[in-house]
């Protein structure tokens, strides 16, 4: 169904206790800050958060973690100079962590969106992150079997949307947004600008509207 334009608070009502939430962004680029703030206000808990990092400073994802709403983080790089909120929870045994190599993280979400049941990746072969996983040698190269990561909800940030939900991004803020949009049951995009249908050239759409359920306009 085509996207609806709503406020952030209404958009995140899609998140239920226990959900897996995919959160876009690489550092601050592409981070859906206002949606995360709305999610904190919304109050859903026991969440699994899938994102490249595990929060910085005391705002955004870090604030969601600090509020005790997150049971588990799936990410490639939790440990950063300012990831003290996550670090504290982790060392206190109050949060689960699954570390996934960044490319496998992206590809596992891509697989979820693309209906692929599992795939053999060469990444992490022979490393601790492949321990316990099925491996196979194909054409002389070793691979690890990786499974899809599906989200109940994806929170992403894009640049421009039309009212149907077609999205464009800006520069490296594109990062995980297009992949996460395909991998969640409900995709919520905050965008800098919502334009009329027909105002985005069909050749430059990055995320087709079919992947977008709710749009939240957050002018920069």
């Amino acid at each position, binding site marked *: 169904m085509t996207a609806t334009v709503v406020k952030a608070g209404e958009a995140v009502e899609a998140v239920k206790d226990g959900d897996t939430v995919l959160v876009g962004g690489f550092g601050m680029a592409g981070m859906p800050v206002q949606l995360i703030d709305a999610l904190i206000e919304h109050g859903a808990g026991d969440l699994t958060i899938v994102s490249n990092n595990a929060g910085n400073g005391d705002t955004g994802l870090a604030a969601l973690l600090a509020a005790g709403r997150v049971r588990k983080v799936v990410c490639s790089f939790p440990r950063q100079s300012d990831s003290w909120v996550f670090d504290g929870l982790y060392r206190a045994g109050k949060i689960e962590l699954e570390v996934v190599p960044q490319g496998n993280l992206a590809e596992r979400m891509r697989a979820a969106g693309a209906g692929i049941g599992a795939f053999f990746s060469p990444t992490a072969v022979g490393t601790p992150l492949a321990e316990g996983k099925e491996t196979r040698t194909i054409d002389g190269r070793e691979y690890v079997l990786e499974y899809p990561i599906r989200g109940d909800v994806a929170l992403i940030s894009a640049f421009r949307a039309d009212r149907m939900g077609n999205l464009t991004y800006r520069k490296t803020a594109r990062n995980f947004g297009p992949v996460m949009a395909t991998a969640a049951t409900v995709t919520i995009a905050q965008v800098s600008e919502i334009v009329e249908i027909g105002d985005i050239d069909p050749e430059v*759409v990055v995320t087709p509207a*079919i992947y977008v359920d709710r749009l939240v306009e957050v002018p920069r």
Partner: protein
Amino acid sequence: MSSDKPLTRQQMAEIVAADIPDGAYVNLGIGQPTMVADYLKPGSGVVLHTENGMLGMGPPAVGDQIDPDLTNAGKQPVTELPGASYFHHADSFAMMRGGHLDVCIMGAFQVSARGDLANWSTGAPDAIPAVGGAMDLAIGAKQVFVMMSLFAKDGKPKLVPDCTYPLTGKACVSRLYTDVASFRIDADGVHLLDTYGISRDELAARLDVPFT
């Protein structure tokens, strides 16, 4: 739509169109399903997908609209609607395989009581196999609607206990629209929705498939 006569192909298309939810993303297979587009209500917001890489496909192109770079899956020239988008083949089939389309509409040689679909090969020993996107479409959409005549020219039913033709997909058909009856198919079996110019008893007598 009710009818006391078997439906024309146009009437079948009209019935199918009426069953597509507003705002749905829909793929129309080659041939008879293409006609469904003619009966979609203006303002329904239904968005058409064509597996060769487009959402927001418009009506067939005519005259100056014809652009060799813009065709449907049947390689016929089509048009682009506002809000369209283009993508490559792997992305297009990821969209289907990932279950993002609401409805896919296909023709069929046979449909089984479990919703198995056979529509790509008659299994003739000298036939050159050719499947196109049929197997991907069959398993890709949230719902697969099939349009076909219920009986072959020789009178044999095409809704069968088990497909005798090679399968396109297993347990994938959710609705079956034919000239004389329409059905819903789910894990419990076949459910008659409507008849057109045939009685329920006659239908039961002519089919080897039980239905409720």
